[in-house]
């Protein structure tokens, strides 16, 4: 059989197949949709025949393209569902955080050590803190926390400012989470940079406020959202370190294989971190600046920390047997 014969004999079938692929690519399922796998296998066979008989590039390129299109239609991924989201929050996320407890402590230490060192250094020598914050940082700290506790709620008195701040925190803090995660691909260096930088900066802010402003107004403001925001940030660091360690210590896999595998495994961590940081932005935008007594804010913040710790310690434990 010549290539001309081959084309003439199968032309109709190929055209029908192409029509079917066109239709499925547009997302419509017609009367012949269930024939797709069969027709796809036929096309695969045609392509191998054309290749092994060397019918030339004109025929094989056409078939190759048709096979690729069919392959993409058949192997299109399915969309997630709400059930998945619920089971992610209730089971999968706390479980993976528990499973990666080593990374949790690693990232916690990387963040908290610079935080506390800088914060307490303010008591002995303010120059470190001043160097980190800079003139602009210090003046904005004074603007927010320099006076009475009500100062922040006054700053937020204009209509819509709570919402605007909520959006700003999303843009700023979730972006930092994502960058912390991405930095992991540099062998974890980018992740460590963001964690240490955040530790230093937040420590400096806290230290400066403790000694130069009104600490009460600062701590009552941050206590509400601190649990979600800080743990979320640390978890995004875990995701980044998971990626970075895959490159540094690939085990028995090649580095690229380990990278692909571990990055995929780290996805739940970054999803969860983004979710937590978004929730922190809600609290920070709509609750933290409310003019309420300090005792109320401290108790709500404390309960928040307690609930979060309980969530990571206990959520999803009973489901262990059910899921397996």
């Amino acid at each position, binding site marked *: 059989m010549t290539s001309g014969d081959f084309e003439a004999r199968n032309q109709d079938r190929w055209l029908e197949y192409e029509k079917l692929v066109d239709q499925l690519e547009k997302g419509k399922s017609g009367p012949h949709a269930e024939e797709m796998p069969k027709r796809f296998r036929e096309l695969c066979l045609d392509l191998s025949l054309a290749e092994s008989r060397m019918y030339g590039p004109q025929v094989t390129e056409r078939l190759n393209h048709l096979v*690729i299109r069919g392959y993409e239609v058949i192997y299109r991924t399915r969309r997630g569902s709400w059930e998945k989201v619920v089971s992610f929050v209730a089971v999968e996320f706390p479980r993976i955080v528990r499973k990666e407890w080593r990374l949790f402590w690693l990232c916690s230490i990387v963040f908290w050590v610079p935080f506390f060192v800088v914060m307490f250094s303010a008591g002995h020598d303010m120059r470190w803190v001043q160097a980190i914050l800079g003139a602009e940082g210090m003046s904005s700290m004074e603007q927010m926390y320099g006076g009475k506790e009500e100062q922040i709620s006054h700053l937020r008195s204009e209509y819509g400012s709570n919402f605007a701040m909520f959006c700003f925190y999303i843009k700023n803090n979730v972006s930092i989470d994502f960058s912390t995660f991405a930095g992991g691909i540099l062998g974890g260096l980018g992740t460590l940079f963001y964690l240490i930088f955040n530790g230093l900066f937040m420590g400096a802010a806290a230290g400066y406020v403790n000694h130069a402003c009104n600490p009460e107004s600062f701590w009552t403001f941050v206590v509400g959202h601190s649990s979600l925001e800080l743990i979320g940030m640390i978890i995004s660091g875990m995701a980044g370190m998971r990626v970075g360690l895959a490159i540094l210590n690939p085990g028995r896999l090649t580095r690229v294989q380990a990278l692909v595998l571990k990055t995929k495994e780290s996805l739940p961590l970054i999803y969860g971190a983004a979710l937590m940081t978004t929730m922190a932005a809600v609290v920070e935008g709509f609750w933290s600046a409310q003019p309420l007594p300090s005792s109320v804010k401290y108790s709500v913040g404390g309960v928040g920390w307690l609930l979060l710790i309980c969530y990571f310690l206990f959520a999803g434990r009973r489901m262990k047997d059910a899921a397996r």
Partner: protein
Amino acid sequence: MEETVKLDTLQQVELAEGMEIRLRIAGPMLRAVAYGIDLLIRFAVVAVAAICLGIAGIAMGNLVTAGLWMLLWFLMDWFYPVLFEVSRRGATPGKRAMGLRVVQETGSPITWGQAIIRNFMRAVDSAPFFMYGFGMVSCLASKRFQRLGDLAAGTVVIYQRIPAPPRMVAPPPINAIPVPLKLTADEVRALGLFRERAGLWSDGRRAEIADQASALSGATGQLGVARLMAMAHWLQEKRRGA
């Protein structure tokens, strides 16, 4: 075979069906242009939104619309490529304009997770200073032009469609001469390619090439060319009952 595969941007991928398909990997230059187009689109969207929200701000309150604008900016920064690449087309508008798409290394469409990984890693690939230094080095150092995000996600950027090699059948075959010998598959292929590309060459070059097969055609020069063309025609033409 190994050596030629390594040098080529054409990648053979074996499917579960036992089939091999070929993917043409796209290089950094074309992708940079695609990225430029996307950047312009993103900029235009954010700019238009700024104007619209600015006007809406009179009614809704300036701070509310400023917040919405920041939210849009955030989404454009991180999720614009993600949403387009998991869509049916598998490409951002810029990539589509350049005839590119993103697929898994196996040729199948990418998943949500992969789209998120490859585009979040952009934060590192685009460093330093959005010059795509890391991405470029990784692209040039990897076999399949993969930037770091592609390596981590296991994705490649390919041409939507592999352009067929240029084909000019000339001079048109007058008759068909049966091939006197039994040819190997490679020889059949060589004859077919000779016929399909003959129109790209001058008469002299055509004769020069045909002279290499004078043992088959039994002639040299223009006559040899005509005979080879006729044999190729005989091999490829449509024959009932063959």
